[in-house]
């Protein structure tokens, strides 16, 4: 297989490429999709089609260069590198929590945590659209279906600080159980379920193709656009204001509530469990700590308690590095948005439903430098801990 880099000179050439993209039988794999004449288009072409695609480009006068002459060579070398790196990593026991990792590395670390701690178990709650497992870490020191806390990250795949923070938090909880009074008393009473990569297909896509990808990667019937915004797909005011009905939109709500398997898997898991007391979700960026509602601009019944708890959590966050988080309902703090996860969890009886937007406030946005992962994770953990302690006290 070859990978070509195509440089279009104008809209006409761009349209030709987009036409090519739509011909599914060619099995072309666009690493960078044709979106603008000024941007290069990278495409992987199966060996048997290379000649005919090149002939087409040449006949249209479209410039291209060969980015990768033989993809197999590159893959073989990369695989070798990774094997060597994995060997190095296995011989050193530390996962670098202060760096961004691939999905495979993250899954390996989940296995590592589960094997190292008896009270940590890796469970699979479903599969993504592209058939990747949805792995949840279950923290449980005993009991039978204890009251539980849910925490997820990475539902929007480009928000890389969230998956990274979730890993650090997992390790923090696991390693501090038995020594930290708060974590110990928490896990002695309650279970914790942590989904570090809620949207694995999107996450892989941010590594391989488009760092700014937000949605799932599901094919949408009748559209050339791909993916649904998984945080507009929950059954809470579904299809209302603040979500788009256009498939090409980054806030497309999808054909119906729970159409995305990534969302449905979580919904089913939580419903079947039946004893969740808190639902916490991590996003970035903006430094906000929010509670319901997003789909409507009225206050939830538990407004006073959630506002007070939110402020306490924001205060804990600020105590570490001075990072300020604004507190409020989704609608008043960020925008009206329907079909969101914490609105669903709240309307389904899980009172302590909070959504965090982590660092920063726009300087780097989604591209938060890796040297901020640890500070972000540490301060976020303090906020989560404040909420969890309150939930623990109210649930016993």
């Amino acid at each position: 297989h070859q990978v070509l880099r195509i440089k279009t000179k104008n809209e006409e050439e761009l349209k030709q490429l987009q036409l090519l993209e739509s011909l599914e039988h060619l099995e072309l794999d666009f690493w960078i999709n044709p979106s603008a004449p000024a941007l290069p288009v990278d495409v992987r072409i199966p060996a048997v089609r290379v000649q005919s695609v090149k002939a087409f480009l040449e006949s249209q006068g479209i410039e291209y260069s060969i980015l990768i002459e033989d993809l197999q060579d590159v893959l073989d070398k990369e695989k070798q590198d990774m094997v060597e790196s994995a060997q190095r990593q296995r011989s050193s026991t530390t996962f670098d929590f202060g760096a961004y990792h691939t999905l495979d590395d993250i899954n390996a670390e989940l296995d590592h945590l589960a094997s190292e701690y008896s009270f940590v178990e890796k469970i699979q709650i479903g599969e993504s659209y592209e058939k990747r497992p949805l792995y949840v870490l279950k923290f449980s020191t005993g009991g039978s279906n204890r009251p539980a806390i849910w925490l997820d990250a990475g539902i929007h795949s480009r928000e890389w600080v969230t998956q990274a923070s979730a890993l650090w938090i997992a390790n923090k909880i696991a390693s501090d159980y038995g020594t930290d009074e708060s974590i110990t008393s928490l896990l002695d009473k309650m279970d914790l379920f942590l989904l570090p990569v809620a949207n694995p297909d999107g996450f892989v896509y941010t590594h391989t193709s488009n760092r700014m990808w937000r949605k799932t990667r599901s094919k949408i019937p009748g559209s050339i656009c791909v993916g649904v915004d998984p945080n507009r797909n929950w059954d809470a005011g579904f299809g209302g204001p603040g979500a788009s009905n256009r498939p090409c939109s980054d806030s497309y709500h999808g054909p119906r509530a729970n159409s995305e398997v990534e969302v449905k898997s979580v919904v089913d898991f939580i419903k079947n469990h039946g004893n969740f007391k808190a639902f916490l979700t991590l996003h970035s960026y903006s430094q906000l700590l929010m509670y319901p509602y997003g789909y409507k601009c009225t206050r939830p019944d538990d407004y006073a308690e959630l506002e007070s708890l939110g402020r306490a959590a924001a205060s804990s966050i600020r105590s570490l590095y001075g990072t300020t988080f604004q507190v409020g309902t989704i609608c008043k703090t960020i925008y009206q948005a329907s079909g969101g996860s914490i609105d669903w969890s709240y309307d389904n009886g899980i009172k302590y439903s909070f959504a965090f937007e982590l660092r920063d406030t726009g300087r780097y946005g989604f591209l938060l430098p890796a040297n901020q992962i640890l500070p972000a994770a540490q301060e976020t953990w303090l906020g989560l801990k404040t909420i969890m302690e309150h939930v623990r006290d109210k649930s016993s």
Partner: protein
Amino acid sequence: RAMELPSSHLSAARAAAAAVGYLRYLRGGPGRGLQLRELRRARRQDIDDVGHKYYLELELEDVLDKDRTVNCTAEVLYHLGSKTSAPDVQVTVQGELRSTEDADQEFYNRIRSLEKELVAENIPDSHGNVPPELEPIHRLAWVASGYVIWQNSTENTKFHLAQVKHVKQVKRSDEDLQFDFVVLLHEMVSQEVLPWEVTLLWHPQRGARVAQSRAAGAGS
């Protein structure tokens, strides 16, 4: 009469983003990157037959001079019913901004003395890294995107520069430096990441101006 808004108010934050875009365009450069630390105060006035006017008190910082606070006031007027005209923005900076004369001249000389025109992409990269020698280019991208943000802001948008996808220097026969940017702007309300092509001209004494800008085609 202007109505006081809590500074956490959504529309105040959006107006502040437009004002910061404008200020970056006006006062930013390779040696100066202004960013918003805090919106201290906001008032809104609804003017019949004209539009909505926001009065803002902003606390900013220069990323190259973080220990200091830059205070400014801004007025942002969104014209009634207008989808195509930019908000009118006025900004007054209190006190003096740190001089960037030396840094600007050094940058100018460095770029002018390059054998091949500068070309770069993905600033910052996926991991948030910006190579030190590209930091001034990144700040010029703030200037360029500041213009686009100001020009395209409405009461229902909040833009940030997400990434510089591509930058290409274009050699000129006059004294200006020219950079053709493709910038990705993240719009917070719709959550879209939108590519924009912007041509920026810059000169150490004359400052920056956008020669042209346009949205870069349909997204994928």
